[in-house]
């Protein structure tokens, strides 16, 4: 009995030792590729910094020129209301055709045209039409610009109309619905928080698919896999250390960007549990690493792995619901999103970091990630075994 126990112990000991040796081998191999390490470091620090610091998805200083045919007090007052942050006034143009030329050359996004007799109309209570030409090549921004413009002109008009009656909008005796917005979780709508977090998640996705897949195929391509196959290692012991090593590297990178870039530089609030964040991240990395290994079993050389990765990663990143709102997607397209682990991962991470959500709220996303990951990993393992039988 005792002896049996001992052999069992020494067996697990050997099993663990093999796992460790193989993991260390992967880490060593990775650390000797200087340029690769350089880019891993770059991606987790500078790349995330520039995404967080530089990118905003809002209408910001839209270049506007105006053509004032009235040159009155009222027209100047209206033009003066088109201000930063949404608009940036680039000055007056002398002729409408100049406006078209500026729009064509991307020098301006909006041309505001105020008709003659504008002030007179206002004073007489006649309707006045102000023209607003918007470059809608970027449909969202075009739409936003128009809606901000409508708001400014609407407020201006209402004030002018009421002033004529001797009332003012500040006057309490007017029935109006005022809405008070309160933006939760990110009160100042700081883009840096959102952009740096999603950028980090994208980087994690790229690396966790690519690194294990490449490590696998490289062995196949160079033939060193034959060495591993004649060794006493099982397929599991060959495959899992690759994933473990890469997971360690990626987790280290994540920690660096979270604590050295995002928290000190962008003041991203880490409201929830850090432990939970890293737990979910590990789960996600293993998840996508499974996808990568699955790709690696299909591909015979690294060129194929590269193309397959683009095929997997690009849709994952684009359709994760981070850059484009999932609610507006076509229903059948949303199906793709629902099978992508990144979608659940983004929800969980934003939930943990910004909203302070715990497992009691995120359990469904985590559960789906476990199920998806298990399925992918199982298929990958099965394909990998079959390859060498």
């Amino acid at each position: 009995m005792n002896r049996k126990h001992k052999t069992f112990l020494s067996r697990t000991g050997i099993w663990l030792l093999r796992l460790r040796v193989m993991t260390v081998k992967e880490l060593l191999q990775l650390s000797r590729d200087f340029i690769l390490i350089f880019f891993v470091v770059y991606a987790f620090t500078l790349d995330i910094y520039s995404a967080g610091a530089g990118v905003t998805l809002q209408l910001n200083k839209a270049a506007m020129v105006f053509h004032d045919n009235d040159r009155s007090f009222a027209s100047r007052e209206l033009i003066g209301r088109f201000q930063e942050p949404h608009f940036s006034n680039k000055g007056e143009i002398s002729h409408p055709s100049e406006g078209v030329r500026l729009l064509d050359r991307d020098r301006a996004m909006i041309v505001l045209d105020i008709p003659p007799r504008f002030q007179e109309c206002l004073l007489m209570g006649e309707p006045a039409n102000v023209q607003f030409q918007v470059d809608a090549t970027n449909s969202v921004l075009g739409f936003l610009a128009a809606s901000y413009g409508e708001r400014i002109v609407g407020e201006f008009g209402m004030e002018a109309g009421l002033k004529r009656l001797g009332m003012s909008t500040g006057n309490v005796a007017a029935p109006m619905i005022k809405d008070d917005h309160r933006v939760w979780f990110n009160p100042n709508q700081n883009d840096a928080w959102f952009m740096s977090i999603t950028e980090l998640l994208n980087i994690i996705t790229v690396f966790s698919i690519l690194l294990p897949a490449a490590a696998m195929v490289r062995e196949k391509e160079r033939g060193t896999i034959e060495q591993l196959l004649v060794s006493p290692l099982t397929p599991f012991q060959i495959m899992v250390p690759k994933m473990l090593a890469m997971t360690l590297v990626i987790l280290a990178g994540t920690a660096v960007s979270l604590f050295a870039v995002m928290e000190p530089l962008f003041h991203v609030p880490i409201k929830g549990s850090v432990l939970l964040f890293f737990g979910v991240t590990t789960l996600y990395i293993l998840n996508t690493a499974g996808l990568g290994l699955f790709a690696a079993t299909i591909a015979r050389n690294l060129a194929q792995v590269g193309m397959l990765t683009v095929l997997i990663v690009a849709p994952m990143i684009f359709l994760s619901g981070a850059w484009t709102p999932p609610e507006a997607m076509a229903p059948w397209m949303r199906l793709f999103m629902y099978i992508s682990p990144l979608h659940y991962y983004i929800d969980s991470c934003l939930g943990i970091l910004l909203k302070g959500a715990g497992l009691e709220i995120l359990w469904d996303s985590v559960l789906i990630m476990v199920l998806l990951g298990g399925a992918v990993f199982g298929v990958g393992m099965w394909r990998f075994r079959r390859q060498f039988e």
Partner: protein
Amino acid sequence: MNGKRILAVAHKEWREIIRDRLFFSLAFMVPAFLMILLGYGISLDVENIPFVVMDQDGSRMSREYTYRFIDSRYFDFKGYAHDDHTLKMLLTDNKVRAAIIIPEHFQKDLLMGRPTHVQTLIDGTFPFRAQTTKGYVTAISTAMSRELLAEYLARTRGISHERAWGIVQPVKLAVRYLYNQSVKSIWSVAPKLIMVIMMLSPPFLTALGVVREKESGSIYNIYASTVKRGEFLLGKLIPYVAISTMNLFILWLMATKLYGAPFKGQIIFFVLSSILYVVCTTGIGLVASLFVRTQIAAIIVTIILTMIPAVLYSGCLIPIPSLSGQAQTIAHMLPAMYYTNIVMGSFLKGVGLKSLWPNVLILAGYATVLFTIGFSLFSKRPRS
């Protein structure tokens, strides 16, 4: 430069690509597949925002106000909530993105001619969506306020309804959307996707081309041959540029026929500048591949250099002027931004060489610089 030797290298590369069947089919499948997936998937319109209402008034007017949101295509009504705790849970769990709280005495205040305050809670994790949601809420509230005010003025001042309207809204903003009259998202997305996909796929194809030879050692055949380095690089590039040009044509067909995006520009100008762009992106792959020793590094470097910048710093989702200083610098360093101008100009604006020539010039310069770097990095006498 000997044309015959360039052709020989190109021919050899072409054979190698064709014989790797999976790679060859992926080279054509990946761009087309991405175009379909992203074209149908990327919709920037903020629509169907899930929201709940907490109606503390429960009056006719508060219901009317709620119905304005329910009827709007921008909102997706998820029901009524009854207490603050439920609201908080729903927002934290991503079940809703906005909550509207209508106060008590909503109807009474309005009928008495007093302003009333409606509170909107918005999920700010996606700042851009929060911004747009705010805009929608304000628009709906303002529209209703205006009607109420006009009614009130007509009632209290004894003036006609039309006059009251004229007072409430004396100035109208006549908005004209240029280039994309119906503000169709796909019209602005499809042409930009050509730019994004052509930024992704050619560098990949090429980057692996040179490193593969380095890693497998077959590069020694080149070192030992009479092929000059310029000839080798040109010959290497030709097949990849050819494949990418074919892809470009397929993507153009998809953008115009499948997605119905209008092409208003000059076709010859577009084709030539597109090939120039493809040469640029292929060149990025070439430089990346000369710079690294292993294929993994080549893949990582090209992904980091192309995939994310192609979206963030190209003017695809975010216009260049909205970027901050540092991001603008990155944007100006990549060819994507210049080609975005060309694509959008050719598709939606219908302008040609006359106003787009600076972009073409920069792309040409870019291609030259890349090729020069490649030329100086590649040596037939490696040190180690």
